[in-house]
């Protein structure tokens, strides 16, 4: 907006829905893509990849996950992504929602 604005540019509820689907064994059309995003996030967390190189399609999710990498990626095995990994992401997303709503 030109001289007053509200901007919300992160849709945590949709991610929550997507990860819930993955937890329940659905969301097959995007499972592999989401899994590779988690792998990318871990690489950024470990300093193996630059945050700038992350696709804009997932930039906010990745930067959020990286900021919580300590808890998320300690037991993360990229060759075997488990429900508990998705649950970890869901916890982070739930927390982020609280933060944003505090601000709005």
């Amino acid at each position, binding site marked *: *907006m*030109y*001289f*007053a*604005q*509200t*901007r919300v*540019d*992160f*849709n*945590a*509820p*949709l*991610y929550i*829905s*997507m990860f*819930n*689907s993955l937890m329940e064994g*659905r*969301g*097959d*059309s*995007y499972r592999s*893509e989401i899994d590779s995003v988690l792998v990318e996030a871990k690489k950024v967390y470990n300093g193996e990849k*630059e*945050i*700038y190189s992350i*696709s*804009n*399609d*997932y*930039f*906010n*999710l990745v*930067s*959020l996950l*990286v*900021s919580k990498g300590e808890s998320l990626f300690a037991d993360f095995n990229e060759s075997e992504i488990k429900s508990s990994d998705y649950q970890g992401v869901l916890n982070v997303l739930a927390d*982020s929602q609280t*933060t*944003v709503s*505090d*601000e709005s």
Partner: protein
Amino acid sequence: MNHKTFELNLTQLEESFSKSKSNKYSNPRKKKHFDQLRELFEKIKVENHSEFTKEDLEDHFQIFQFLFNGLEFLDDSTLNATPYEIVTGLERALSDWIPQETFIIVTSLSNKINHFSFEGNNAEKNNQLRKIIKDRYDYEIEHRLIKINLPKVLVRDYLTCVVLYHELGHFIDLELNVSAKLFQNKFGKPHILMFTKEEFRYYAHAGEYFADLFAAQYIEDSSSIYLNYVAHNHSASNTHPATFDRIQKVLQFINQDSDPLIEEIQHVLQQSGVSQLALRYETIDPETSGFTNLIPHKVENVNQLHAVYKLGWETWMKSDDNFLSRFERRERYHIVNNLIEKSISNFNVQEIWAKNI
């Protein structure tokens, strides 16, 4: 949210489609987008809604918002309603930054005089919605809308409509996560986790500065003139920097003076592998422009096309002393706007003719 409110929403959407289906779009991409929204809606309609879970309902609420919002903007984006000439300039600016084929710039007309705004999803939100739609309905929507609101009464006011370049800047900012990356660099955490007033203010101000600078690439300081009128002496708020600071920042950019924020933005853009801010206009001398002879300016290239707005502003601001002085105020207003419109449309027509001859 429950099944009955969902049904209500579904019915409202059905009504909207019923009204919108008679729209005629000159742009085949708009027509295709409308058709795809309708096809998606038809798929949703035949679902067994009574068995929807809470999560299904929430997903569909978001899909419905996406459909409603798309219809709203498409409705006001027929050739009869949209500020076509200025949108063609925005499309050219867009192509400097993002492959343009995927996007359609659409406008919604507001009854509020200062209601200029960008509205819409960034790449990520769009991606999420698409993933969910694809997963649920095995359906893909080809184009994305870049949605800009503007006051209905100013739809042919080419002086004030320079603000649309600023709004396009907001889209580019969100799409490329420029402010988000600036925030990340400064605070060492994602902007999603911003908590303090200072953090929120930094992120919001960065977005406004970027949008101003984005616009200044094309329209020089034209937007500042109007901003200084509608937001004169405004001090910094949580959402916007002080008007004075915004105007100064634009001047620094136009004069290519060094400035820490501009340098930081350039760094972020460079690291992200996208275009950088640059002066993308070719100033037109008002004294030698066609306007002085009451004819459209013969625009020779795209950089001049963007500069026509600044030419219009200069012509208007000096209209007590220049060739316009012999006309009444309202005539001057129409002359300037008409000459801007025709300068743009002549360039567009000649270009499309040359491509197709």
